[in-house]
């Protein structure tokens, strides 16, 4: 009986550890929500607070855009019904974190990899890569 209880408790710890490892820390989750909200509100300054100065994004056609170019695109461009993300996964490596998900944008379903970094105590996005999904797994 004691062995069974010990195994169960150990099992719970293992499950908890795995779940935690796949979830972002609360401050990162908060930063993510604030950045998305700013983007959907067309608030480029709010979005910029959560974006590194050397940010770059590769869009589905392989073009590279800078922070200034993205800010110009976001400015005043409100998104009423943002599409839902699927297949969201996180991996955290100390002061860096990886967020991967699928989002359907006008070009079609697209795979995103977002790289977050903690700078001066604040989580910011350093890089985004987008790839159009053209083949089923």
């Amino acid at each position, binding site marked *: 009986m004691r062995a069974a209880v010990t195994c169960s408790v150990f099992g719970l710890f293992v499950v908890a550890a795995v779940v935690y490892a796949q979830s972002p820390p609360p401050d990162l989750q908060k930063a993510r929500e604030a950045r998305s909200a700013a983007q959907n509100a067309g608030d480029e300054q709010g979005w910029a607070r959560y974006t590194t100065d*050397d940010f*770059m994004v*590769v*869009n*589905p*056609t*392989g*073009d*590279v855009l800078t922070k200034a170019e993205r800010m110009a695109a976001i400015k005043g461009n409100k998104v009423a019904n943002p599409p839902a993300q699927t297949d969201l*996964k996180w*991996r955290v*490596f*100390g*002061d*860096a974190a*990886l967020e*991967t998900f699928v989002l359907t944008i006008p070009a079609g*379903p*697209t*795979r995103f*990899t977002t*790289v977050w*970094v*903690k700078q001066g105590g604040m989580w910011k996005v*350093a*890089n985004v*890569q*987008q*790839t*159009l*999904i*053209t*083949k*089923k*797994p």
Partner: protein
Amino acid sequence: MSRTSRTLSVAVVATLAIMLGLSVQARQGQTVDPALKKAADARIAAGNTNPDTYRRYTLDDAYIGSPEGVVETVQSRIAAGKGQKPSQLKASDERFRMLGEAAAIHSFRVDGTNGQGQKTAQRRLEVWTKQNGEWKVAAVQVTDVAKP
């Protein structure tokens, strides 16, 4: 001003500019770990046709996003490269960004030629992590450039 003193002035200004540049780079934490650069170069050169090199520089559970938007595994990438010759890929526009001590972004463009002799180009994002003193890729995502 004589030619010698002009040359000397130019040399001093150039040296100061280089020192200032290096100092700014170091302050921003952008100095690339030589071991990371070496690992990244080796990984590009080997591609997925050398299983030992691929495994050496890739985490077993790495996230690998293909140009078709499919998530692959280390095993499937190695299987795909089996019996293939290493591609003659030319990397350009390489950029390393250190994310603290134990993670880094490596982004670059690769140009090559496909089996039909057509020019191809891709943008690649690699996220590296240092574990037990070794740099390994934790995530890769590849995007085809529409107009190579």
